[in-house]
């Protein structure tokens, strides 16, 4: 399939919406601002042909999509405290200070939507409201581009490539650990989307996958990390040069039984074989249990003759020399480190906090002391989006 992504300057951003129960702030990188309780980050996109920027009926990755350059819509929501089953997963974005170096948010104009809990709505209803609203605002903000000229148009198509080049697939893991912990494919929780499943790489870049997964923030694959996916972009760029881009297989993280995990791993490997892949890059979403899914997939691929490199965040106690991986198989002999999620980022005092003044662990967001990398949204992204890595010390 062929798809075009047209870039427009941030200055074209549409008017900020007035939404009931939502505070809207615009903050720019470099301001002494800390965002807390961050759910998702989305790049404003709109389609000139009138189809949805985040389609629920498909298909994405065809025709043209417009994007606003350097604008990010961020959603913040403090779930009603006692109801939230997983309560350690604070999610922070700092627009200045040491945490600002970890991700590109501090280079962007950030439109922050702070959703206020409403009486009578439970966690899942609030989340559905916040997620739908955030995607809609992201689409509305990009609407003025429809009347303007782009500054750049990128073409995404896998043209003919030398058959002697190695064929490389991306196996992209998407979490499904139940409500508040699943990703969506065309609006459907991935556990119900028939994974593992091959999709066109353009679909992934064009809003087919959206985030509803609020596990560890550092290890979270936010919507913008699919839209701007560095791995898919790198594979497109190298297609015909150093490799042939075989395609993408989406697979589920957090299969719930040992048998399901093995079955899913074998099926993902078979899908890679079906794409004709000589090698595959296996990515991870969230952590712990999902690392076992990744390791079993690595093993299944290697047994099926598909060589693998995998990307994982380490979870090593900074003060000890014990291993930092949750799971590992001997076949995982080529691993990219996405950084040690447990390492502390130095304390920093923001002048302003948006999203909620008290972190989920009860500390004051202005005076929280050092915060682990795992609490910084996207810092240790396991699709290889960013730059953090752990090195031997």
């Amino acid at each position: 399939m062929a798809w075009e992504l047209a870039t427009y300057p941030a200055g074209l951003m549409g008017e900020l919406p007035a939404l009931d129960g939502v505070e809207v702030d615009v903050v720019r990188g470099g301001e002494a601002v800390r965002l807390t309780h961050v759910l998702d980050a989305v790049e404003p996109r709109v389609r000139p042909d009138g189809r949805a920027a985040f389609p629920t009926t498909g298909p994405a990755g065809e025709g043209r999509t417009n994007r606003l350059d350097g604008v990010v819509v961020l959603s913040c929501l403090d779930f009603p405290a006692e109801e939230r089953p997983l309560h350690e997963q604070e999610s922070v974005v700092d627009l200045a200070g040491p945490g600002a170096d970890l991700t590109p948010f501090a280079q962007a104009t950030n439109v922050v939507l702070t959703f206020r809990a409403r009486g009578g709505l439970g966690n899942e209803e609030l989340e559905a409201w916040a997620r739908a609203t955030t995607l809609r605002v992201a689409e509305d903000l990009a609407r003025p581009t429809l009347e303007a000229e782009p500054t750049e148009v990128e073409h995404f198509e896998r043209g003919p490539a030398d058959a002697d080049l190695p064929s490389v697939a991306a196996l992209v893991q998407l979490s499904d650990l139940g409500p508040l912990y699943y990703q969506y494919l065309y609006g459907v929780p991935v556990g119900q989307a028939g994974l593992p499943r091959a999709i066109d790489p353009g679909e992934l870049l064009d809003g087919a996958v959206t985030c509803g997964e609020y596990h560890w923030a550092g290890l979270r694959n936010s919507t913008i990390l699919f839209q701007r996916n560095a791995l898919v972009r790198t594979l497109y760029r190298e297609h015909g040069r150093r490799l042939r881009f075989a395609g993408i297989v989406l697979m589920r993280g957090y299969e719930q039984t040992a048998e399901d995990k093995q079955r899913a791993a074998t099926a993902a490997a078979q899908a890679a074989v079906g794409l004709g892949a000589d090698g595959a890059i296996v990515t991870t979403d969230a952590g712990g249990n999902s690392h076992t899914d990744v390791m079993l997939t690595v093993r299944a691929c290697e047994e099926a003759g598909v060589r693998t490199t995998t990307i994982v965040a380490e979870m090593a106690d900074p003060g000890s020399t014990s291993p930092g991986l949750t799971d590992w198989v001997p076949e995982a002999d080529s691993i990219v480190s996405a950084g040690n999620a447990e390492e502390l980022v130095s304390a920093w005092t923001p002048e302003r906090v948006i999203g909620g003044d008290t972190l989920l662990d009860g500390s004051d967001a202005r005076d929280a002391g050092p915060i682990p990398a795992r609490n910084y949204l996207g810092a240790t992204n396991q699709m290889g989006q960013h730059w953090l890595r752990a090195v031997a010390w």
Partner: protein
Amino acid sequence: MRAVHYLNQFFAGLGGEEAAETQPTRLDGAVGPGRGLAAALEGVDIVATLACGDDYFAEHEEKALEVLLGLLEAERPDVLVAGPAFGSGRYGYACARFSRIATERLGIPALAAMHEENPGVGATDGKVLVVPTAVNVAGMRDALPRMAALAGALASGRELGPPEEEGYLPRGFRRNRLDEQTGAERAVDLLLAKLAGDTRSEVASGFDRVDPPAPVADLSQALVALVTEAGCVPQGNPDRLPTIRAQGWLRYSLAGEATLRSGEYESVHGGFDVTLANEDPNRLVPLDTVRALESEGRLGRIHDAFYTTTGNGTPVAASTRFGREIAAELTESGVHAVLLSGT
């Protein structure tokens, strides 16, 4: 600043193998290779040399360490430098042990120099900096300036840079750095290299593999304990078990309990959705089922306490300690088998 240098009997000039039983000894100032080291040190003086025979250390380690620590403490040094031991296993081990104990007990920063495959490297357990050297004494001239540079850094207390810049072996710690390339670009490079026959990894791993023990011969005669990492605690979490990165484990009585009732027990585990677990805590600690097996005679008896912790972001070293401590108590209580429920 003050340094103390540790040598074995040979390098201290006390004799060869025939002197390997030499007891810990103090010598004034720099001796043997210490003279070259002293020449390379800037702003640091070697105030004393401590020496010990390799055999004596190996055969009387506790006693040797005790004497050496006393001699060391009296010098009030800013840094301890041991070796270089090159490829000598006994000497390397002594350097590693003495340096490590000096650091742990007296807080004196220490470095030990030896070949990277010297078994002494493993005895440092990341607590002591190891300067890599050649395998034999031909590497002395190369080793001393590097030891001196690092000793100066340690004595001054400045924060050390990465191993390759400062010239020590990685200790097993992991530190975050910002790379020039994204993880995605590095993954493509690593995969293409692997496909071309050059397999590399940014994460050198290696994992404990625990072999399953033999089956219990006769469960109907066995005393069985329930152990979990699911964060199952009495309602309200009276002992404040952490939801993540637990520092210990807890024990709760099951005497007279037939089941774990909802509202009386809960999970505080921060790594999974506990809703279903809290609807029926037996899903975490299956007391109801094992009580039934007990009354049917299929299990001998259920141990009258269950053990619990939170297995979430727990370092391997901490988990290993929990396991040892719990196993010791269970063994003491005559428990034959454990039903270990994980999440």
